[in-house]
């Protein structure tokens, strides 16, 4: 057995473990009290919904922590047309013709 490899893997697993524990400490109160503030589409108090998103929150919790602190919601997606539309001067609605 490679002692260095074992020590390195054990240390990495502890780091991951600590990150997930941090995620759990943040996520449990977040799904109960804070989630409505970062995503208005979360309505009601479905427990199953909260359980389903919990594993992802354990991974992505820093993203939601930042949004919660800054008072932000999810950004609008960026596609080529959305970017071009924002950059272009917007004409008045145009009539069709034949």
């Amino acid at each position: 057995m490679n002692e260095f490899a074992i020590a390195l893997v054990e240390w990495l697993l502890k780091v991951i473990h600590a990150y997930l524990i941090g995620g759990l400490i943040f996520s449990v109160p977040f799904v109960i009290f804070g989630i409505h503030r970062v995503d208005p589409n979360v309505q009601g108090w479905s427990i199953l919904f909260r359980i389903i998103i919990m594993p992802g929150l354990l991974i992505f919790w820093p993203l939601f922590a930042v949004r919660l602190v800054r008072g932000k919601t999810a950004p609008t997606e960026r596609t080529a047309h959305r970017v071009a539309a924002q950059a272009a001067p917007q004409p008045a609605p145009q009539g069709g013709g034949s």
Partner: protein
Amino acid sequence: MSVSYKSIQWNRQKIIYDLLLVATIALYLYLFVWSTQWFGGADVERGLRAIWIRAYGSAAFILLHVILSIGPLTRLSPKFYPLLFNRRHMGVVMFLLGVQHARGTLAWYHDFGNLDPIVSLLTGNLNFGFIPFPFELLGIGGLLILGLMAITSHDFWLHNLTAPVWKALHMCVYLAYSLLVGHVFLGALQTNKHPFLTIAVGIGLVWIVGVHFWAARKEAGCDRQTFLINTEGFADIGSISEIPENRAKVVTLAGERIAVFKYDGKISAISNVCQHQNGPLGEGKILDGCITCPWHGYQYRPEDGASPPPFTEKVPTFAVRLQGDRIFLSATPNLPGTPVEPAVIA
């Protein structure tokens, strides 16, 4: 659509789909275990638990091939859309099968020493030559990616990560597939004398690469079209007669595809990219006065690219003009949800 999230979006079709999926997997697992015991071989000598480990692993790997085939098959024929409708449930089931395979492996091969089973798995073989390559590490990498996809499969994640980021994350399935091909191929070379598994993996790889290449060739035809833009910023994209009623012609302008719909004696154009999973709106049709995405049924009004209330999705719109039978399309998108009066067919 994004008014409020549901825990699991089950309807009658999806329940039937899921029941068929679970029944097929259960039948496969039973037949695998039964036939392995019946025909004998190395697995029987290792015991029933070793057979179950391979049953779960092979079921997950075959299901991954099915999942990867659905996307390109829908590009080739709309008949495959019903399979796409509930693909996320299939992906979660595949991940759970992979977890069962990994749990069995940890318990069977790595739970008898002083080390933690995961540490044992990660450090047990560090010989990075061709054989015996630590193929287990490839399997762990693939499973972690599939896990990340499974836990972000709910629409909550699609909305909060945004569709392009979510799609990019889920495109990592191809990296997971590559790792798992290596995992199965190298694992089979080390543990099986019979070439059947190696040949089967090769056939699966050729099928996946082939069907993607076939679909990509078809798609590339649409994106290769070029249009001349006149001094007013409009491009002649074809004739009215090319477009069937309540359907669209898809053209590429302004760096992305545009869906030009004909309906009720009018022509309207919106960005082809559905706000939910970026599905191809131009392959959908007009239902109840709304453009309906063929992937999951999200709807947009053709006149302003907005979902009917209470839904809130919006896509960019484009001005359209007609000159005789020719359709002229603005190359400049309007902001999502901007009303544009449809061009009326004389």
